[in-house]
Structure formats: structure tokens, C-alpha cells
């Protein structure tokens, strides 16, 4: 089976490294972006299967970036999962309304992360 490619967008380098490490250990190809610009340049050169997107990003936040993706003909089909640190379900609701497939709440363990990602791919393949 072809290896799935995942783009991780988070301005916190340590967390970014952690997520990338866990997911590469699970045999995913990972790309790391610290902001939206980096993410866009990665997307130009690579075809990814999933974007893990932090909501709180400098300059352009996750919601706005997601909206940019939704309005792009080529990129609109890439599933996006938000990484959120918010307490309430408000972000979840907004996120899902904005066309995100899922959300992952901070803090999370490696198991939770891997399970969530697997679930998302299952969901995307099913539907």
C-alpha cells in the first residue's frame, strides 16, 4: 500500500516534531510547516492526503487557512483536521461546519493521535 502523506501545520516546533515523529513511526510520510506560507509552498510541490492544522497560528489562523483551501479547486478535496486547545465545543462545531473532517484536542497522547488519524483515513475512504 502506498504511504499516506500528512502535512502538519503548527507554530510550536516541539509539538510539530512530536507529531511528525509519532506519525512517521506509524509509517506515514510527514511534512512540517510552521506557518501558512510554508504550508502553501509544501502543498505546491507535494500532493498530501491529510492536513493536521493548528487553529492558533501567527498571522493567518487555522480557520482562515482552511477557508483558503476550501476555495481552491485543487486543494479543496484534501481533508483537514484541526488541532485545538480550546475548552469548549465551540471550536469543534465551527471546525466541522467549515468542512473539517475531525478535530484533535490538546493535550493528546501518541495513541490518541494515531487512532484519530487512522479513523480519519477510514472515514475519508468510506465516504
Amino acid at each position, binding site marked *: 500500500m502506498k504511504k499516506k502523506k500528512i502535512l502538519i501545520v503548527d507554530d510550536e516546533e516541539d509539538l510539530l516534531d512530536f507529531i511528525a515523529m509519532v506519525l512517521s513511526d506509524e509509517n506515514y510520510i510527514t511534512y512540517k510547516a510552521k506557518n501558512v506560507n510554508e504550508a502553501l509552498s509544501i502543498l505546491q510541490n507535494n500532493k498530501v492526503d491529510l492536513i493536521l492544522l493548528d487553529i492558533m497560528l501567527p498571522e493567518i489562523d487555522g480557520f482562515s487557512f482552511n477557508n483558503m483551501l476550501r476555495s481552491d479547486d485543487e486543494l479543496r478535496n484534501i481533508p483537514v483536521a484541526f488541532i485545538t486547545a*480550546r475548552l469548549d465545543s465551540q471550536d469543534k462545531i465551527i471546525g466541522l461546519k467549515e468542512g473539517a473532517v475531525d478535530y484533535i484536542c490538546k493535550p493528546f497522547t501518541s495513541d490518541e493521535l494515531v487512532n484519530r488519524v487512522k479513523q480519519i483515513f477510514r472515514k475519508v475512504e468510506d465516504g
Partner: protein
Amino acid sequence: MRLPFRYKVSIVITSGVIIIYVVLFICFYLSSRSKLKNEFFNNAKLYSEVTYDKFSDIYTRYYRSVYFKFREFMLTHIRLFPDLQKVQIVSPEGEVLFNSEDIFKEIPVREKKVYTDDRFVIENLKTLEVKTFNGDVIKIIHPYIDRFGVHRFSIIYYFSYERLKKEINGIIKISFTGLILILILSSFVSIFLSRLITSHLSILEEAAMEISGGNFSKKIIIKTNDEFQDLADTFNLMTEKIREFIKELKERDRQKTQFIANISHELRTPLTASFGYVDYLLKEKIGIINEKQRKSLEIIKRNLERLNRDIHSLLQISKYYLEGVELDIKKTDVEKILKDILQNLSPHIENKKITTELDIKVKECFTDQEKIRNVFENILINAVKFTPEQGFIKIRNSLISENGNSYVIFDFYNNSEKIPPKKLDLIFEPFYQVDSDAGKKLGGIGLGLSICKSIIEAHNGKIWAKNDRIGFHIFFKIPGGVYEKEEDIDS
């Protein structure tokens, strides 16, 4: 009784107009009456002065000789002054020699002498001056002295006010008609005027209603260049200020929410990374670890977990205080949630050999599922923390009725240390910790019960604590509930 302002205004205007009219009328009436009377009196005097000489002459010359001539002359002259009631010629002794009322008789035949009975006439008959009496009837006495200087008789004129009175009464009648017309007219005008005034008031009222309904963008336009315009301008200024104020409040509110979100992000992101790495290390994904390393990592992990819990509580209580508690009320199976939580806590419960008892009479409640779980968790985590080894935790609920409202009351009972009665209310305050060894050793930042309080109060419920002989209760009640075991509640 509530009288609308516009009626008040129109009543004031109408009564004002009427008062002015009546006063003016009275002045006019009094002055014109005295003027007319004076005029009348002067005319009467003038008439008597002009005619008395002639009358005397004609009387002496013709009365007894050529009566028809006398009569004709008198008739002509009496008719000249319609208000002349009668003319009498009276001798100084009081005998009525001629009375103009008798003028229509053919011949002046006298069976017996007639004397005047007029007091004024009798009193003044003998005087040789002209006497006037200005009462209801004007009387003028002109004495006639012949060429030999003998006072032969006096001519007495009686002038009547009758006609004048009628005239004046006519004026009063016309004025009354005028009064009624003025009344009708002024009420119409005043209603119109007050409408004009109150139309501005109703514009203001409408705007005030809009504002109380939450619409602050309503502007009032009154261009009357008077106090109404000032009021409207002030009103607009007020709504503008309120609008700005609300905008500011909203902005501040947004900033607070943003602040919580930022703090949440800032605290959780490093926690996620640390926790993630520790967890990953413990899973030996990065490399084999020895027993000592494992123990150390477990301690780190446990502390990170505690930190996470505290951060969560802190953010939660800040959010509740800043934004209030938003509830998503639906039918909730509380029994299932309680069992689930006890299951999660079972390692700790078994570890301390605590017995638990669940006595649920109301299985389903109308409540916010997530938040009530949070309440149960906070209370039960505390209970497990403070219950001594081999102690008990009893959870009960039932339906009660208070002032016609039904509540579901929950009772969490354990045999932990008692709390000093003075501090029973304080345990629900944020950051309050019961000063006990157990409390300090077991950690936590004292937010659990204040979170419970916020949530229960958002349900319009109440939470309180109570000591009893063997232990400690936390009660809370929330409105409503679904009957599950009706017969139990009845008994």
C-alpha cells in the same frame, strides 16, 4: 385614572381659552352696560329738558279748551322717545292732573281726584329744582312755575330700562352662543395642537421602545427647533453612547474570551509536547528504558496529568466567570453517567477498599450531559480523595417538591473528615482548600466544587454541604426530572 397627555394638554388649552373668553366677556358686559345706562340716562335728561317747557305750555293752554290738540301734541312727542313709560302732570298737592297713560281716552273725565302714590314724587313735589331718580325706572321731576312765580304743577317723566335690559340680555345670549362655539372650536384646535406636541412624544416613546427591545440604531428626527428637538438630540446622543458602550463591552468580552483561548493554547501546547514525549518514552518507542527510568518518567507523567487537570479547571472556571455557563439541556441518563464515573475511578476505589452504594430513584434528568458529568466527577474525585480506607461513598437521588416546583435532589455521602461548620459554605468558593493534611497531600487547586457551583446555579439549582454524625454530605438540586420509580417516591 390614567389620562393621556394629549387630553391633558387639550383640556388645559380649552379651559384657558374659555377662562380668557369669560373674563373678557364680563369686562365687556360691565363696561358696555354702564355706558349704555349712562347714555340712556343722559338722553332721558335731555329729552325732559327739551320737552318740559313745551308740555307745560301746551297743558296750560289746551288741556281744558282744545283737548284733541293737546292730545295730538302729546302723542307725537311721547312717541319720539320709545323708552318714555309715561308722563304725569302733578299738582304740588300730589293730585295727578294728567297721566299720559290716559291719553287714549277720548275726554279726560274725572269722577274723583287721583293722587300719586310714588314716594319719590311725593317727597320732591314741592321743591322747585329738577329732581332725578335713577333706579329701575328713571324719574325726572320738572317743576313748572308760571309767569307770576307760582308753582302750578310739576311734570314727571318715567323712563323705563326695559328695552335696554332686553338689549343687554341679547348681548348675553349672543355671548353664550359664542361661548359654546368657542368651546367647540378651542377643543378642536387644542386637540390638534396637543396631537402636534404628543406626536413628538410618541416618536420618542417609539424610539424608547425600540431601545428597550435592544435596537440602538434608531435615530429620532424632530426638526421643531425647540425643546422637543433638544430632547430628540439628547436622546440620539444617549443611544449613540449606549451603542458605543455596548460595542466596547462586546469588544472587552471578545478580548476576555480571546485571552482565555490564548492562555489555553499557551499552556496546553507545551504540555502536549511534554506529555506526548514522556508517554512515548514510557511506551519504549524511542528506546528501551530501565526500571529506574520508568519510575521517574511515570512520576513526570503523573505530575503532567495533574497539571493538565488543574489547567483545565482553571480555564473552565475563568470561562464560567467571564462568559457564564452555557447549557445544552436534554434528557440525560444520570445513572449511566454515575456508573461510568465510578468505573473510571474503580482503581482508586478498590485501592482504598471503599464501598460504594448507588440508590437512584430518578434515572433521567433534564440537564446538560457534559456539564453534569463534570459535576459528578468533581464531587466523586473529591469524595474518593477524602474518604478513609475501608470507608464508604453513598450516592442517592430523589424527586422533591418545593413551592409547587419539582427538583431532583442528589446526595453524595461519605465518611470523610468533617468540615468545620463555618467553612461549609466556603468550600464552594474558588481556590478554597480545607486546611487538612489529606487535602494538601492529595493536591488539586481547589476549583472542583466552585465549578460544580457555577454549573448547578446555571441550572437554577442549588448546591450545599452538611456534616452529620458519621460523615459529610454534598447535596445539590436541579429543577425537573423524569419519574422513574414513582411508587418509591410516593412512599
